[in-house]
């Protein structure tokens, strides 16, 4: 009896030790010397496949093994931070450009120029897009922005031209609103999607994210409110993501929409839909249409292993080479970052010209506020949602500015 008990004690103690050591072992994994890892958010089947093909070509070219690790976009930052604290960072991280400054500010990124990557043939706007406080940390393969998508058949049938100014857009949208069909669809959801969509209206009107309670921003918001008041914009817009907007457009519930090129793959699955693309209308004729620059940048996280960091830069060099940029742009319908690559791409897909033009004047969200963007974004989304659901624009924005400044 006692012997049996003693026999039981030993396995149980062993079990508890094992539980403890297994838990601790999870905290720090060893890296493999010959395998390089790229962390990205390509969880989508097609994107994962495109990246896998790119990395296979680059592996062959550089004579190393590169592995892809994909996590949902919202987890790239937190996963990277956790990996930083357990000293198990991957060799390359693909950040959304609006998140890169946060990681850079924490001291987590290496200057790409010091690792031998050049910015030759990359337009200044896109270099800035991948830079934080003047240091080039992130190389973009492709960039994207927003544009006005319209249903060619609907506009033709109504005998209307593609709008170029706010007044024209409001009028066209009103005329196209009939039955189940709204004139225009956009996303004003309570997340980054909505803020991204608001920026072209705010910036084209001369507004600025550092001064949210200015008249220019309030006027832009009032313009959105006007569309809602006319009935040209569905009230559901405050609950829509950009993907929802695309669904509405494809279902014929909207004649026009504000959206980005990443929807083209889905749009093209509906053969009966003839869509066109134009720059986002401007407040007054002759104004510049300033869109937000979106997309991801490839970065080298600081691992203090110079040899590996140098190889990581070579991986980025390969992934963002002209040839790979064109391949990626062809797949994803986004605009190549490199000027020469962009020129080739423009010839291939002339229907997306408007998008390429919009990219040329597009602005980065984090250029002015850097790592403070998340506070500004949260304050702004709360403000335009309040305004669209009844509050006075100026009051809502005043509160937003106070909230953005306090950092709450």
């Amino acid at each position: 009896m006692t012997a049996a008990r003693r026999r039981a004690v030993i396995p149980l103690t062993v079990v508890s030790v094992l539980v403890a050591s297994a838990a601790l072992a999870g905290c720090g994994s060893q890296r493999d010397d010959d395998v390089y890892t790229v962390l990205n958010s390509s969880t989508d089947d097609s994107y994962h496949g495109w990246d896998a093909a790119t990395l296979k070509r680059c592996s062959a070219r550089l004579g190393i093994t590169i592995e892809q690790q994909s996590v949902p976009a919202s987890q790239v930052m937190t996963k990277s931070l956790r990996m930083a604290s357990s000293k198990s960072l991957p060799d390359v991280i693909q950040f959304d450009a609006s998140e890169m400054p946060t990681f850079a500010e924490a001291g987590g990124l290496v200057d790409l120029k010091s690792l031998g990557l050049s910015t030759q043939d990359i337009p200044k706007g896109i270099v800035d897009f991948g830079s934080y406080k003047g240091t080039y940390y992130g190389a973009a393969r492709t960039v994207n922005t927003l544009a006005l998508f319209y249903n060619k058949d609907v506009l033709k049938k109504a005998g209307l031209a593609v709008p170029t100014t706010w007044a024209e857009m409001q009028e066209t949208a009103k005329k196209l609103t009939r039955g189940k069909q709204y004139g225009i669809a956009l996303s004003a959801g309570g997340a980054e999607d909505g803020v991204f969509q608001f920026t072209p209206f705010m910036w084209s009107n001369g507004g600025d994210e550092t001064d949210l309670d200015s008249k220019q921003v309030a006027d832009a918001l009032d313009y959105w409110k006007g569309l809602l008041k006319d009935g040209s914009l569905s009230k559901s817009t405050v609950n829509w993501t950009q993907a929802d907007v695309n669904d509405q457009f494809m279902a014929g519930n909207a004649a026009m929409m504000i959206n980005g090129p990443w929807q083209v793959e889905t749009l093209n699955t509906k053969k009966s839909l003839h869509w066109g693309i134009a720059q986002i209308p401007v407040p007054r004729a002759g104004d510049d249409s300033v869109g937000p620059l979106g997309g991801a940048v490839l970065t080298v996280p600081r691992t203090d292993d110079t040899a590996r960091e140098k190889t990581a830069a070579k991986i980025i060099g390969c992934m963002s080479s002209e040839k790979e940029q064109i391949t990626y742009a062809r797949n994803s319908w986004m605009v190549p970052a490199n000027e020469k690559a962009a020129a080739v791409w423009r010839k291939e897909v002339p229907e997306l010209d408007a998008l390429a033009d919009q990219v040329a004047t597009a602005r980065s969200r984090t250029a002015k506020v850097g790592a403070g963007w998340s506070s500004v974004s949260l304050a702004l989304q709360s403000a335009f949602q309040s305004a669209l659901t009844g509050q006075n624009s100026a009051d809502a924005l005043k509160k937003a500015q106070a909230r953005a400044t306090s950092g709450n």
Partner: protein
Amino acid sequence: MSTTTASAAPATRPAPATPVKKRDTRRRRRLSQWGFIAPAVVFMLLFFGYPLVRNVVMSFQDFSPSTFFDGKSPFNGTDNWSKVFHDDLFGKALWHTIVFTIGSLIGQFGIGLALAVFFTKRFPLNGFLRSLILLPWLVPMVVSGIVWRRILDQDTGVLNSFLDTLGLGGHTPWLTSPGMALFSVIMVNIWIGIPFNMVILYGGLQEIPKELYEAASLDGASAWRTFRSITLPLLKPVITVVLVLGFMSTVKILDLILALTDGGPADSTQTLGTLTYQNSFVQLDFGAGAVVGNILILISAVFAVFYLRANRSEGK
């Protein structure tokens, strides 16, 4: 260790001369008892104790993204706490959490109990219908959220077009009006919570002896009287468990709200859960996130004590 057990044993039990062998056996038995408890203790300390303490400590630290690199998280006193308490959003979120929790519990429990009582009657298809009602329980929370977001869409949602065909309007801004969104979110959560309430309460009803109902009907008691004087009092322990468990899963709601409204429109569906998420994972202000998290833990802990007490009295 060995000396204390050896000397303590004769002191508590004045057995004249304990043979060495017997003392040895007792020591071994105690050791083996600890051996059985040890894995559970280690597990609890590692996976519950450590994160809990860490979260409390973190709420007094300046814990930012750079902490992950240099490991420095200086203590900043009650800065995080005062920051959270001075944020308008905290008061709003707290209020929404209270309304959400109470509303959901009343709805889930009321409908769950009614259905449980209903299904104690014998009728054809009873079993089939009962399993059908379990469906919402099988669907992951995020999936329910996404499906309901489509159903509740103001223009293209099924619910509004259904109301429209009935001639009951059909333009209700379920999720798009700040005044309505919280109510809609509560409705969806009630829908999700009904099966759990029904199943547990139904189980509790099966435990009540049938003879009591027979006696009541012989005495000529009305249905309501039977329910109030027999069903409710005998079901009380189960009711406590259902309500406390329901409370704890409702108060920390996050996934459903993120999928339905993202806390909007205009922060009208922000709860303490979404606020923690927003502070920690959107703003990366882990200190402030920990503060809200601690408040949630505290609220849950109070109700956990109720639960433990209810369980104990049931065990007697």
